[in-house]
């Protein structure tokens, strides 16, 4: 099943969701721990094995797995490339795969649910959905979490709420995030002010690639920075409100930028098309930049490419997904294959 997910990509990237011109996906992640065990960071090898055994045993005696169409994997049974590819499609975290021993995870066929065992916490439960669809995602993920809570004794203290390895997740253990493409706020530089001020609203705002505040792809992840002292509902409302405001100002900025700099923008889009058509090698950063410009082209209606195709390509061009797509482990070859691939997929559309 992993091969199918990697090949066909998860459902949340193939579908085009609400406010899909700006919000690519919504992600909810919940941290939980079992009461009678040390946190993974402090647990011995035997304890980590015991944690996995206990969870598998509980699942065996319930219809949990079948109801959510889950399949479980021992992380060690996957190749290094497969593990990294699952990180690239947001189903596993990088922290989870660094040390692959005594780790177990469940994912579903649609590739929108993932449950990691022995990550930073015993449980990291995650659900992804296309576009800006936080309410539906919240309702769905809590179906999973409530079901788990019926069968397992989660560590909880009435004053501190759900207990987590790192106090940054304490209380609700809830992290809500949206992945946004904000090219116009990036172009004008206004994004910097927003990032600088976001912490005042208990919001973390970061470029989705690396540390940079100005990623070449203009992709940003917006999430809550606090989990304690607010209800799940408060956090949801906070991200919804902030997200709506970002959508509003990004669209406003689009009008301003197009009015002032249309020829510069069209020039950049044209150059991106040129690179796809005539270059022989495209590295990962350049591919991200090109896709961002093509996305802008679609948004300002100068190009006619389905946005969902561009979204898919944002994942497809990632190094390990490329390696699987072309069945190679040769890093040198990837840039050439990426160039061929983009030419091939976008050929008739640009």
């Amino acid at each position: 099943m992993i091969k199918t997910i990697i090949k066909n990509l998860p459902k949340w990237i193939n579908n085009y969701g609400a406010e899909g011109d700006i919000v690519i996906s919504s992600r909810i992640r919940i941290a939980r721990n079992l009461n009678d065990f040390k946190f993974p960071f402090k647990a011995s090898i035997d304890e980590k094995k015991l944690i996995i055994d206990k969870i598998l045993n509980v699942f065996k005696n319930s219809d949990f797995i079948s109801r959510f169409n889950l399949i479980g994997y021992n992380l060690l049974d996957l190749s290094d490339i497969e593990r990294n590819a699952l990180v690239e499609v947001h189903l596993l975290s990088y922290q989870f795969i660094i040390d692959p021993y005594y780790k177990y995870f469940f994912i579903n066929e649609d590739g929108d649910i993932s449950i990691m065992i022995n990550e930073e916490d015993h449980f990291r439960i995650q659900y992804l959905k296309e576009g800006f669809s936080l309410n539906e995602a919240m309702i769905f993920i809590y179906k999973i979490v409530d079901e788990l809570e019926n069968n397992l004794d989660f560590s909880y203290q009435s004053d501190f709420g759900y207990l987590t390895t790192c106090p940054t997740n304490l209380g609700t253990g809830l992290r809500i995030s949206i992945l946004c493409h904000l090219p116009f706020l990036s172009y004008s530089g206004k994004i910097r002010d927003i990032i600088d001020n976001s912490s005042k609203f208990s919001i973390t705002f970061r470029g989705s690639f690396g540390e940079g505040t100005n990623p070449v792809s203009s992709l940003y992840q917006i999430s809550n920075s606090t989990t304690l002292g607010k209800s799940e509902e408060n956090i949801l409302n906070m991200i919804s409100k902030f997200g709506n405001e970002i959508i509003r100002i990004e669209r406003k900025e689009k009008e301003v930028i197009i009015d002032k700099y249309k020829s510069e923008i069209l020039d950049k889009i044209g150059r991106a098309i040129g690179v796809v058509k005539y270059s022989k090698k495209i590295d990962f950063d350049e591919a991200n930049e090109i896709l961002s410009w093509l996305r802008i082209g679609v948004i300002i209606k100068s190009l006619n490419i389905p946005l969902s195709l561009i979204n898919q390509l944002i994942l497809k061009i990632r190094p390990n997904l490329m390696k699987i797509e072309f069945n190679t482990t040769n890093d040198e070859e990837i840039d050439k294959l990426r160039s061929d691939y983009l030419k091939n997929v976008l050929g008739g559309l640009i």
Partner: protein
Amino acid sequence: MLCDICKKREANIFITQIINSEKKTLYICDICASKLGIKGILKELNIPFDENILKKFLELMPGMIEEEKKEKSCSICGLKFKDFEKSGFLGCPNCYKTFKEELRPILLNLHGNVKHIGKKKGEKFTLETFFESELKRLKRELEYAIEEERYEDAAKIRDKINELIKNDKNNN
């Protein structure tokens, strides 16, 4: 030199503490030293340990408390507070009981809050209206304020609850 603790008797014991190359010396008399439980002094007087003297001593030498705090360890997983300061990770659920007081300022800094307001264990999550979620949050805060005997805060929260209910009725 007079004793730094009682300020009455002549001091003939001194205790030096060096933290981050900052040196601090405390001069103490035999009686206060005995009351602190420092053994081998004035055995014949058999002076019992005095908690108030220890409090005074720790006020004058606050570094001692800090060191004690960092050495404190969790009885289940053995994690020391200084380990947490290094890694940012706690070792087990019991750590939250062991280091409850030490964690409070850290939580306040991280979350601007030290109390869980979200769903309780065993409660099901349901999407509520803004009114419902606000009412629930305020009720929870009221509960905590009463628990901690902060009655002035409790009165303010009750006013907020009444106002919220009134506004909701007017809107409907």
